[in-house]
């Protein structure tokens, strides 16, 4: 019995700061994905929605929200929240429904409308919520955590602000021709280094913005897909692992790591374990990848991911970047879409946007940013409160 499912259709609403209701974006992305799959809304048996927590009740029940918006027709739904990993979590739920034989065709949708500036915790006085307390007691924003990792890279491996800037320059170039990207403009190293420091050593142009946007995926059984297309993109793995105790790297929104006093740290750090689980499930390794979409919340974090997904050993990411291995035309292009550097983050849509990009790449439909002959691609992402996500697609 095959454990694979197929990506029959993908669609997105352009990223930006549109200020409209997130449901509108989600519906547009869903309709684009349906058209791409050659299907109609009435063909969809199951809807998995990736939730948004900053848009009121409709955001908490995204599966129902999008189903109602597209027209109630009795289909079953699920609504998933896993912070930045929500999209992959929703994808995984849809996959399980298909593999269990409960349905053949599912629609997965994530959409967000975001406020300006730093992400803040949801409102109210909540003295037992670490996400609230970290702002109150520490003034620790999301970039605080990104910056702690970045500084650690500098001190341990000799990374420089120029290295970080080069990630932005690369991604800005990759995203130039992406019609769904919010920022489509070349950026120079000098411009990055001249942008104001937000959380030392990270500058404004090192850190991803917050955006509105939506992405949708039509997921089907392989048999169903083969009746509609000759050579479908398939999902070889979806990793949604959580950390293993003791987690010894400080993670958003926590005040401390776990203690390693009584139990030795696990063999792999959490971020290493996310991709490892995906590789294991797909039965492949890092050498098999033609491209990757990694979660560049900051430029420095993209470098961490190179090591976490096994493109190089620890401390070698700067060399990989500087050798051009991760640029379009290089050995294994990373973030050919332009990544978060060009998109900004639309939380519940982002992990699905990564899947959309890899799908277009594997079909040879990525236009000016096409990775030649791409057959296997990996996405990786991490949501706060211990949510990992990694999807491997192949064709």
């Amino acid at each position: 019995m095959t454990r694979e499912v197929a990506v029959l259709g993908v669609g997105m609403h352009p990223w930006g700061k549109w200020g409209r209701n997130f449901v509108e974006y989600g519906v547009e992305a869903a309709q684009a994905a349906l058209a791409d799959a050659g299907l109609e809304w009435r063909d969809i048996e199951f809807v998995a929605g990736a939730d948004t927590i900053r848009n009121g009740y409709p955001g908490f029940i995204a599966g129902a929200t999008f189903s109602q918006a597209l027209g109630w027709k009795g289909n079953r739904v699920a609504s998933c929240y896993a912070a930045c990993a929500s999209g992959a979590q929703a994808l995984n739920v849809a996959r399980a429904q298909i593999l269990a034989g409960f349905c053949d065709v599912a629609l997965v949708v994530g959409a967000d409308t975001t406020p300006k500036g730093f992400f803040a915790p949801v409102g109210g006085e909540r003295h037992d919520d670490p996400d609230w307390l970290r702002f109150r007691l520490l003034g620790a924003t999301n970039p605080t955590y990104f910056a702690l990792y970045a500084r650690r890279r500098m001190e341990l491996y000799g990374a420089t602000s120029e290295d970080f800037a080069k990630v932005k320059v690369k991604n800005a170039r990759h995203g130039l021709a992406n019609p769904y990207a919010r920022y489509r403009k070349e950026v120079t190293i000098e411009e990055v280094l001249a942008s104001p420091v937000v959380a030392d050593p990270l500058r404004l142009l090192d850190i991803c913005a917050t955006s509105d946007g939506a992405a949708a995926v039509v997921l089907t059984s392989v048999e169903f897909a083969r009746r509609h297309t000759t050579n479908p993109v398939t999902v070889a793995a979806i990793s949604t692992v959580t950390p293993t105790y003791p987690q010894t790297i400080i993670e958003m929104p926590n005040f401390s790591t776990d203690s390693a006093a009584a139990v030795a740290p696990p063999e792999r750090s959490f971020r290493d374990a996310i991709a490892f689980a995906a590789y294991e499930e797909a039965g492949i390794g890092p050498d098999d990848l033609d491209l990757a979409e990694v979660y560049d919340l900051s430029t420095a974090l993209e470098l961490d991911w190179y090591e976490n997904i096994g493109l190089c050993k620890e401390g070698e990411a700067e060399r990989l970047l500087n050798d051009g291995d991760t640029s379009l035309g290089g050995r294994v292009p990373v973030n050919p879409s332009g990544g978060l550097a060009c998109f900004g983050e639309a939380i519940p849509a982002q992990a699905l946007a990564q899947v959309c990009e890899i799908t277009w790449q594997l079909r040879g439909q990525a236009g000016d940013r096409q990775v030649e002959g791409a057959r296997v691609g990996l996405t990786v992402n991490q949501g706060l409160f211990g949510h990992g996500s990694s999807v491997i697609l192949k064709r």
Partner: protein
Amino acid sequence: MSDKTRVPAVEGWFTTDPDRPALIGTRCTTCGTYSFPRETSICKNPACTGREFDEVELSRRGVIWSYTNACYQPPPPYVPTTDPFEPFAIAAVELAEEKMVVLGQLVPGVDIGDLSVGTEVELVLDTLFEDDEHEYLVWKWRPVSEGAR
């Protein structure tokens, strides 16, 4: 000195001993693992079902694992204390005995250019913010000067 009542900004996370303040954590009486903030339900070690914990004061000194600063005013519920906003520094500090890393602001006036991974720091109490009657306290890290070692 203000005559306002000094109260912790969060209940039960640290002692308010003026000379030797300490973070309050717990140690599982079954497996010995530490937690901060304190554990109250079941041990987080998946191999342990302990439900009893000794309250312990965590090490008052540690070394910097990494550090950064906040150049822009964080959004609420952060309470600004100056207008205009003045940047402050934040460190992740490794505690040797507990084998854990704990975040905290650094005391005002620390130049992060003077810090590096491995810099020794100690825990002190400082004002987080004030209202009309109270001065709310929080823990902060202060570099240990050469002479004080």
